C-alpha cells in the first residue's frame, strides 16, 4: 500500500490504485491542489476532471478527482456541506453525473468543506452495471484520504527557492 502526500492532501492508496497530487502551473491567476486517483495507469497529460483518462478506463476501473477551489468559495451554499461523505451508496452514481458522457459509465460529484478548504470529489465508474463491485472501491479510496488545513509553508509560492 503506497502512501503519497503533498499540498496538505495525503492518500494511503488502496491496492491497485495509483495517483498523483499536484498543483497545475498557473499562467494566469492562482491554481490549487488536485488529487487524481485511478485503478489504471494515469496519463500525465489529462485534465483535472479526467478528460483524457476516462476514455482509457475498462469496465472494472475507477477514476476519482479531488479538486480544491479557492478560498472565495468558502461559506458559499455549494460548499456548505461540512466534510466529505462518509461513504457512497450505489444510488449516488448516475450516468447523468458525468463530465463527459460515455455510454456505460456513471459518476458522482460532491462539494464540501473540510479542514477549512473547499473541495469537490468526483468519481467515475468504468461500468454502471458493475457498481456493486466498484462503489466499495471508491469508498475505500475516499476513506484513505487525509485533508489537512492549508499551511502557508505548503503553498507553491511559499516553497523555498533560490533567486
Amino acid at each position, binding site marked *: 500500500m503506497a502512501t503519497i502526500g503533498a499540498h496538505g492532501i495525503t*492518500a494511503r492508496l488502496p491496492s491497485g490504485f495509483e*495517483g498523483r497530487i499536484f*498543483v497545475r502551473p498557473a499562467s494566469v491567476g492562482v491554481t490549487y491542489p488536485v488529487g487524481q486517483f485511478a485503478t489504471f495507469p494515469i496519463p500525465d497529460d489529462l485534465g483535472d476532471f479526467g478528460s483524457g483518462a476516462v476514455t482509457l478506463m475498462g469496465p472494472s476501473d475507477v477514476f476519482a478527482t479531488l479538486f480544491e477551489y479557492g478560498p472565495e468559495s468558502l461559506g458559499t451554499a455549494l460548499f456548505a456541506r461540512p466534510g466529505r461523505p462518509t461513504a457512497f451508496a450505489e444510488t449516488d452514481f448516475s450516468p447523468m453525473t458525468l463530465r463527459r458522457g460515455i455510454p456505460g459509465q456513471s459518476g458522482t460529484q460532491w462539494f464540501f468543506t473540510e479542514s477549512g478548504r473547499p473541495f469537490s470529489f468526483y468519481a467515475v465508474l468504468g461500468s454502471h452495471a458493475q457498481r456493486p463491485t466498484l462503489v466499495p472501491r471508491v469508498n475505500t479510496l475516499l476513506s484513505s484520504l487525509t485533508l489537512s488545513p492549508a499551511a502557508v509553508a505548503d503553498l507553491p509560492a511559499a516553497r523555498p527557492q533560490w533567486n
Partner: protein
Amino acid sequence: MVALVIVSTFVVLLLGILVAGLLRSHADILRSLHELGVGVGDPSAAPVAAPVTLTTPASSPALGAAPAVAGVTPTGDARAVAVDNSDDLTLLGFLSSGCTGCAGFWAALQDPGLLQLPDRTRVVIVTKGPDREVPSEVRSRTTGRVPVVMSTDAWVDYQVPGSPFFVLVDGATGHKVGQGVASQVGQLAELVRRAEHDRSSAGGGRGRGEAPLAGPAREAATDDVLAKAGILPGDPSLYPRTFDDVFPHARSVPAE
C-alpha cells in the same frame, strides 16, 4: 646476518604481493563502480559495456512481486505509480542526475520514438528521493513526457545496486520479468522486445484483454458482435429515442 637478510627479503616480497593484490582489488572495485555509473575518477572515459540481465518470465520465476513506486516529482508534487493495474509492461528506469552512464537513458526513455519499445510498454523513471538527489538537477533532465518519481524507498524496495538499472514488470501479474544493467539504449530496447516476445509466446499477460481496436477494425468487430447477438442494421435498439432506452435501470441524480 645472512639469515636476517633472507628473512627481510621474504617479508618484503610477501608485503609486495599483498599490496599488489590490494591494488588489483581496488581497481576491480573502481571498474565495477564505473560500469554502474557511480564511479569516481575520469568521468570522460567511455563506459565499458556492462553485463545485461533481462531474463525471460520462464527463466526467472523467482524475481518476485513488484511493489508500487511512490514518492515526489521533481516539482514537489506527489506521485504513485502502480505496476500491477494494467496488462501493459512497465519499464522502470532507475537513473541518477549525476551518473555519466545515465545521460543517454534520460533522453531515450523520454522519447518513445527513439527507444522503439513494444506497444503498451509504460516507461517510468525513478531517481532517489530529495534526500539523496537535487530536485532541480532532476527537473532539468525531465521533459514531462513520462512520469518521473523521486523515491529512495523504491530503490530500497527494488534493491537497486546503482544507476542506470532497469526493471521490467508484467502488469497482468504484478511480477518482475527482468532486471539488470544496460550500458546502451539499443541493448535495453532489444531486451525489452525479447522479454515481450517471450511473454507472448508463453501465453502470459494480457489478462485484461488485448490492445483495443481502433478505426475500421473496431467498427467491423462491433458489427460482428451485434450480428451474433441478433442485432442487424436497422434494429430499433440502435436508435434510442429517450434516456431510458439507453440506461433502462438508471436512477435519478442524487438530491444532494
